[in-house]
């Protein structure tokens, strides 16, 4: 299973104030707050942690088809500059985060998952088409024959008629960007 989350950093700067009283306490565990407060670039750490939590949450909602808002239940730790782990109940998710000056993008996968992840960042309006195009390249099924359906909690699934093509799929929008990550059916 795969999940992804993108944060438009300019948008985050204008739409969210992480220094607002109570913001960090509601969103992050004590351990994570320490990481933020001791970082040289606290802003980047806030959004890296947030995108890790969201990417992991998007795996959980594909598994259980239940939505909830519990950022404290997803505890993050960093392995390296890009890699990290998110713990959620008895689950462990492995994350990779890519940063540039425009956005921060995290892909999360279950730690024992060996499936190849296909992923890209683009514009929010064309993400659906980008996924279909990539599926065509990978499977030979034409774009016109691929359609998107949604699970009861809104997780996207791609089909060729009645046959499901994606094993797991996650779409993320924020500000000026859209991103996807998927794995294929074996």
């Amino acid at each position, binding site marked *: 299973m795969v999940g992804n989350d993108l*944060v438009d950093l300019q948008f*985050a700067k204008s*739409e*969210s*104030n992480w220094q*607002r*009283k*109570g*913001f960090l306490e*509601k*969103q992050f565990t004590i351990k994570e707050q320490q990481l933020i407060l001791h970082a040289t670039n606290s802003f980047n750490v806030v959004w890296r942690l*947030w995108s890790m939590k*969201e990417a992991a949450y998007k795996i959980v909602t594909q598994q259980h088809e239940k*939505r*909830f*808002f*519990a*950022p*404290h239940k997803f505890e993050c730790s960093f392995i390296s500059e890009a890699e990290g782990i998110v713990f959620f109940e008895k689950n462990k998710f492995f994350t990779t985060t890519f940063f540039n000056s425009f956005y921060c993008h995290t892909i999360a996968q279950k730690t024992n998952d060996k499936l190849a992840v296909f992923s890209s960042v683009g514009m929010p309006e064309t993400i659906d088409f980008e996924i279909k195009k990539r599926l065509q390249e990978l499977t030979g099924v034409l774009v016109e024959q691929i359609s998107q359906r949604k699970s009861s909690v*809104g997780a996207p699934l791609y089909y060729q008629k009645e046959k499901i093509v994606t094993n797991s799929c996650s779409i993320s929008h*924020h500000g000026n960007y859209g991103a996807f990550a998927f794995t294929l059916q074996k």
Partner: protein
Amino acid sequence: MTKEELITKLSAIVKPYIQNEEAFKSLNENTDFINDLEINSANLVDIILDIEDEFDIEIDNDSMEQMLSVKATVEIIQKKMNI
């Protein structure tokens, strides 16, 4: 405070964060913050903090977990205010 008054106050709180004007115009008990109003999940925390300020209540993590729709949020505010 009646439920209608609560919903009116709540809609004023969520307004700055919504991205779907049409869904906001027809806001009702069944409106979902993310699926209908297209609020960024990062702004959910702002809404919760705004609710705490407006109603002078404290929202614990267990309550926050449910707060994805107008209905669930109104119920939690009512419970916290004992009304």
